[in-house]
């Protein structure tokens, strides 16, 4: 008989720039070891996952990360009093700070387990620290610099050769070919994601990515490399294929070994024509394409849950090469009653559990 688990998951925004929540849920529903009750944690009322009842058993709205750890802890405590959550998997970069900070308290006071990077690991891999991080772990990283004002833009030509990449601290990246474009992207990104803005040297080559899972002791539990085959106007993969790229796997293994990374992650690289790998970003959680890894034979979210529960997990040693994922959009028809319910009560789902369950 499969183990029954209640797992709370964020990132239900299965939109054109999707959060990883639904793919992680699919992976857990595919588990051969668990039967899962999925509690969706949403921030906005139009996150499609809220209405995907075959994926999510019950949804609770939670406060935005800026509300602070105490407010979030209060909400999680209430949800836990109803749902008795076993494991919580946060899937947004912007919420990780709070959940990492709360992880000890959630386990001790509420019995909720997580499997997250340490605060030190989380902060060190931040875009703004990436160059230093590369030096520490022996990785090639494009030259980068933080800027806080458009007045700093003219001086960039002293340190960088155009084109350069203009990035937000959490999301968004644009290639700029001149000062004017840098200023435009600076204002656009700053308005949405705040300061600082990260300037990074553009590296010519092909973008390749790898999803991986570290056990926190320096071992890589699994990894699947992927190349995007179709990219949306937001730079997100709409289709991709698993690669036979030993070099990329070595990069991930070395990075996890050196940093003792704990949890899921995505490493984004530019592979040059000389087969050099430049690390351009470390995402401290599973990417939205994590279900490709499941399709290739590595159920990384299942392995993460097992590690969160303190179980020993054997590392995957193979995956299928040449497997593709192709996203599609699908219009759900939703009754206004459901929208009303999530908007007014902050809860929705066909399978409400009572506290006595």
């Amino acid at each position, binding site marked *: 008989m499969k183990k029954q688990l209640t797992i709370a998951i964020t990132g239900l925004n299965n939109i054109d720039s999707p959060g990883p929540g639904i793919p992680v849920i699919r992976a857990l529903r595919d588990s051969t070891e668990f039967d899962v009750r999925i509690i969706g944690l949403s921030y906005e009322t139009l996150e499609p996952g809220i209405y995907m009842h075959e994926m999510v058993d019950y949804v609770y709205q939670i406060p935005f990360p800026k509300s602070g750890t105490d407010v979030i802890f209060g909400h999680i405590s209430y949800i836990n009093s109803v749902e008795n959550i076993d494991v919580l998997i946060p899937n947004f970069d912007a919420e990780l700070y709070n959940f990492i900070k709360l992880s000890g308290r959630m386990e001790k006071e509420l019995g909720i387990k997580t499997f997250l990077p340490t605060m030190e690991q989380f902060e060190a891999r931040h875009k703004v620290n990436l160059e230093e991080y590369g030096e520490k772990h022996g990785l090639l990283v494009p030259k980068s610099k933080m800027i806080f004002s458009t007045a700093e833009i003219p001086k960039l030509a002293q340190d960088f050769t155009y084109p350069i990449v203009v990035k937000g601290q959490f999301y968004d990246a644009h290639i700029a070919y001149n000062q004017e474009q840098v200023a435009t992207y600076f204002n656009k990104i700053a308005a949405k994601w705040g300061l600082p803005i990260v300037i990074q040297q553009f590296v010519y080559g*092909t973008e390749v990515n790898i999803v991986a899972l570290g056990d926190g002791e320096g071992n890589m539990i699994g990894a699947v490399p*992927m*190349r995007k*085959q179709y990219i949306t106007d937001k730079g997100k993969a709409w289709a*991709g*294929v698993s*690669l*036979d*790229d030993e070099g990329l796997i070595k990069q991930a293994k070395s990075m996890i070994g050196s940093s003792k990374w704990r949890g899921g992650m995505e490493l984004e690289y530019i592979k040059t024509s000389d087969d050099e790998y430049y690390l351009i970003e470390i995402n401290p959680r599973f990417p939205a394409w994590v279900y490709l890894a499941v399709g290739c034979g590595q159920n990384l979210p299942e392995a993460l849950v097992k590690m969160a529960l303190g179980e020993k997990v054997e590392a995957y040693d193979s995956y299928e*090469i*040449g497997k593709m994922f192709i996203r599609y959009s699908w219009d759900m028809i939703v009754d206004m009653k459901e929208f009303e319910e999530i908007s007014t009560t902050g809860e929705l789902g066909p399978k409400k559990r009572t506290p006595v369950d």
Partner: protein
Amino acid sequence: MISLKKNIAISESGFVFNPTTGDSFSLNSVGTDILKLLKDGKNEKEVKTTVIDRYDVDGETFDKDYYDFLKMLGQYKLLDAS
């Protein structure tokens, strides 16, 4: 000697997949035959003999097109560096 990378997949329909880069290509029957011969480790002389035997082409035209084709395979990173 020119050799095709070992992990290149070639289907009967002429679909070619490079699992290292994720690139895929479609070839006509001549291209498919040449790639299969290279994958089987045939040298240039053996490739030439086979193609001239199978298709209506003279040696000079084959040489010209074959080198163009090899150059293209190299650009697409389908050949071993050696």
